[in-house]
């Protein structure tokens, strides 16, 4: 059986951005498979889910890349990858690779009480933030969760006016100030290039296939 080139096992919360980066850069040697985005709220389940996918797919690919950062696993994801040959995106979490490390840590230094949203989280705020934190059932808990936050920072991957308006409304709903920081796909692309850029070997492009 001919092996495909590279499998990217990705967090569903960055699926759109990954596909866009792949298509923009002509990285057609990548097949992207996503795990459920709600693992974002249960990081302890990420290493097992990634390991299971590696195990089930490793025989089909020459190489596997994991499109997660540490994502709250406190090193457990790295441990799960030991011996698999798979790499992951550097950094602590998606906010870091969407912003770029310097920008992210600058924002955190500027205001430690920053609650970050990405395009995905703006779109799915109701499910992942409101329902995920139980605020649909207990709206009075918002003051417990967000007491120490001062602002919402929307790290935007696109310049969508609709999403900006939604993000601002989310900030207002939480009673927080709002800051818009457009970063586009540049920082994510930069984080992926070392591992995923299309090799010079022309054969790498021939085996491409994609689930997305």
């Amino acid at each position: 059986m001919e092996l495909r080139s590279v499998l990217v096992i990705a967090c569903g919360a960055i699926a759109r951005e990954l596909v866009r980066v792949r298509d923009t850069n002509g990285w057609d040697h990548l097949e992207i498979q996503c795990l459920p985005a709600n693992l974002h709220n249960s990081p302890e389940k990420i290493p097992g889910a990634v390991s299971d996918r590696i195990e089930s797919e490793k025989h089909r690919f020459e190489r596997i890349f994991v499109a997660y950062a540490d994502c709250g696993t406190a090193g457990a994801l790295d441990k799960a990858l030991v011996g698999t040959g798979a790499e992951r995106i550097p950094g602590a979490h998606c906010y870091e690779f969407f912003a770029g490390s310097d920008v992210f840590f600058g924002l955190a230094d500027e205001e430690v009480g920053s609650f970050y949203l990405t395009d995905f989280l703006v779109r799915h705020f109701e499910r992942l933030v409101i329902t995920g934190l139980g605020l649909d059932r207990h709206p009075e808990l918002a003051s417990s969760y967000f007491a120490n936050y001062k602002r919402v920072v929307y790290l935007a991957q696109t310049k969508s006016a609709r999403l900006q308006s939604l993000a601002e409304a989310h900030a207002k709903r939480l009673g927080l100030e709002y800051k818009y920081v457009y970063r586009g796909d540049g920082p994510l692309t930069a984080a992926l290039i070392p591992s995923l850029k299309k090799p010079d070997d022309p054969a790498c492009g021939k085996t491409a296939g994609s689930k997305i």
Partner: protein
Amino acid sequence: MSDQYDDIVLAELSDEELIEQMHDDLYDGLADEVAEGTQIFLNRGWEASRVLDEALVAGMTIVGVDFRDGILFVPEVLMAANAMKAGMALLRPILADTGAKPIGKMVIGTVKGDIHDIGKNLVGMMMEGAGFEVIDLGINVEADTFAAALVEHRPDLLGMSALLTTTMPYMQVVIDTLKERGLRDKATVLVGGAPLNEEFCEAIGADAYCRDAAVAVETAKEFVRGTA
């Protein structure tokens, strides 16, 4: 609470029934009912410490166990904690007036760079409920502040909390600062927070990792008794 319980009059329940009902009300996060039950026991002449132990702490212990076992989730635990807080608000002044000596003293805080305090507050409340004096340094606490608090308050225990993988390494900075200033042996260092584990605790040279508030209380008791 479902409609079938709407007609329960707490004041008409026996002590035993009321304790059980308060455990249920804590579990369901019903702050008004927990406060009412607390007041009823005080009116019946119960010592505040007994109400605290048998109604509130015992009820929160059930919540803690079910959280650990994946039956309850953070929102429900928060609701229960708020309910316990309502009962504690009635008991705290009475307990303070009794002049009872605390079984130990703890300085607690969320480390620098981190503003998450739900777990830390829960630990503080449970420690207080267990008879400890708790000095809460708040959130985003610098190593200097922890060190100064050790000198000022001379606690038996220092508790550090972090929710983020990016901030938990700061616990090492705090411990190193304590060592540099000759303070490391002055207090038992307990650490906790969602991304932590035993291995991390050992790596940074803390004394114990506490996976939840109930474990923190038991661990603290063992250390002050000298049985850890």
